[in-house]
């Protein structure tokens, strides 16, 4: 009896097919519509697959990249490993490429001092390979060494001298009337040009700074006509375009004929 229902269904389907043959005749336009839609469906499917593949590859690359450690963290050398004269940490944001390569050399260790201040002698250690960075950071100079205070000339002057470091492009002299400070910038000396810039507060003072060779040393001398007999206290700091180094220890100087001692 199930065949009866099947026969009825098939007969009904045949009727519908006959009616469809007249209602939806086969034409080339119909075939073109089918072929065009199939092609679009295939292109869309391939595009979806391509997008999915790119997404998967990209996510995989990101995942692998996050799993791997970054290069600079692994290969960065120990900072200041070859520098004994720069104990202070660098203030530049990328210290791993520079500080260890250009330590502040002690002038006492330099057997052949440069004759000109603009071409300081290089450290004896072999320079490492050039960093890949296109804008290498300029290191901050180390503390100024050899700072001493002297009694100046007969015009009531005081003098401060120090050893010129290899990496400093200039120096700032800080002055105070008290040992405890505060110390303020009295003058700035540019090594390359040899010019001295006097701070506005001391613009009327007689201040001279120059660099000269003294035996095996390159020395910077600061002479200040303080105009009074009390001791004056000084500190010196070297600087570069990367920043200013630490202040030197305090030194004291008195003018000639001063009854005071430092």
């Amino acid at each position, binding site marked *: 009896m*199930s065949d009866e*229902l*099947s026969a*009825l269904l098939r*007969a009904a389907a045949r009727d519908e097919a006959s009616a469809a043959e007249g209602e939806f005749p086969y034409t080339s336009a119909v075939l073109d519509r*089918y072929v065009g839609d199939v092609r679009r469906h295939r292109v869309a499917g391939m595009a979806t697959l391509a997008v999915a593949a790119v997404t998967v590859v990209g996510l995989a690359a990101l995942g692998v990249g996050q799993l791997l450690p970054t290069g600079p963290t692994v290969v960065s050398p120990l900072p200041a490993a070859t520098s004994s004269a720069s104990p202070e940490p660098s203030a530049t944001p990328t210290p791993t490429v520079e500080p260890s390569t250009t330590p502040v050399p002690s002038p006492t260790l330099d057997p052949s001092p440069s004759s000109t201040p603009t071409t300081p002698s290089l450290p004896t250690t072999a320079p490492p390979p050039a960093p890949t960075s296109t804008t290498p950071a300029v290191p901050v100079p180390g503390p100024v060494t050899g700072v001493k205070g002297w009694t100046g000339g007969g015009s009531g002057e005081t003098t401060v001298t120090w050893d010129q470091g290899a990496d400093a492009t200039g120096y700032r002299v800080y002055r105070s009337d008290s040992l405890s400070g505060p110390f303020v910038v009295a003058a700035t000396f540019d090594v390359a040009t040899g010019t001295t810039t006097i701070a506005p507060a001391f613009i009327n003072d007689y201040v001279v700074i120059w660099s000269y060779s003294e035996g095996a040393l390159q020395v910077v001398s600061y002479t200040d006509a303080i105009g009074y007999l009390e001791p004056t206290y000084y500190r010196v700091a070297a600087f570069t375009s990367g920043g200013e180094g630490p202040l030197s220890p305090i030194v004291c100087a008195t003018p000639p004929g001063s009854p005071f001692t430092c």
Partner: protein
Amino acid sequence: MAAWQGLLEELVRDRRPALIGYAALLSGDRSEAEDLVHDAVVRTFGRPRSFPNVNAADAYVRRAIASAFIDRVRSKRSRLAALPRLVASAAGPEDDAAARLDVRAALLTLPRRERTCVVMRFYDDLRVADIAATLGLSDGAVKRYLSDGIHHLNAELGTAADPYAGDPPTAVVDVIAKGSGR
């Protein structure tokens, strides 16, 4: 011309009316049936598949029609609106024609899944397991749809169809709920 394109042309040229008739059993409307066939053909050939001949492609498209009909959301209004059109378009004094009209009208009174299962069972001669696999239903659900649908059609048409005739017998295991305390 690509291989798929030649097969597609043969299918559309030779089998499209029969496919529309098959789809019309499900949808009850030839326009919707033609739309179903178009969607099914595009879905079938829209992915790289290889069919040995047009018969294999025809069978695949029919499964796609049934699946698309199950998935297609149609409002009750459109189903009801199709009935008078079918009745009006099938004129004829002959008893056979009246019977065919009756079976189409009776089919349209069945819910969508029941109707699809009945057509696939009694038109395509598919087994319960194949219907379930095609429509993504469980065997038990297909059996329930078939039982309900055939019971209704038998009552409407005066037939005595057996929903499981010709289907291989399956073991039925009664599960007794535990923990009832009795």
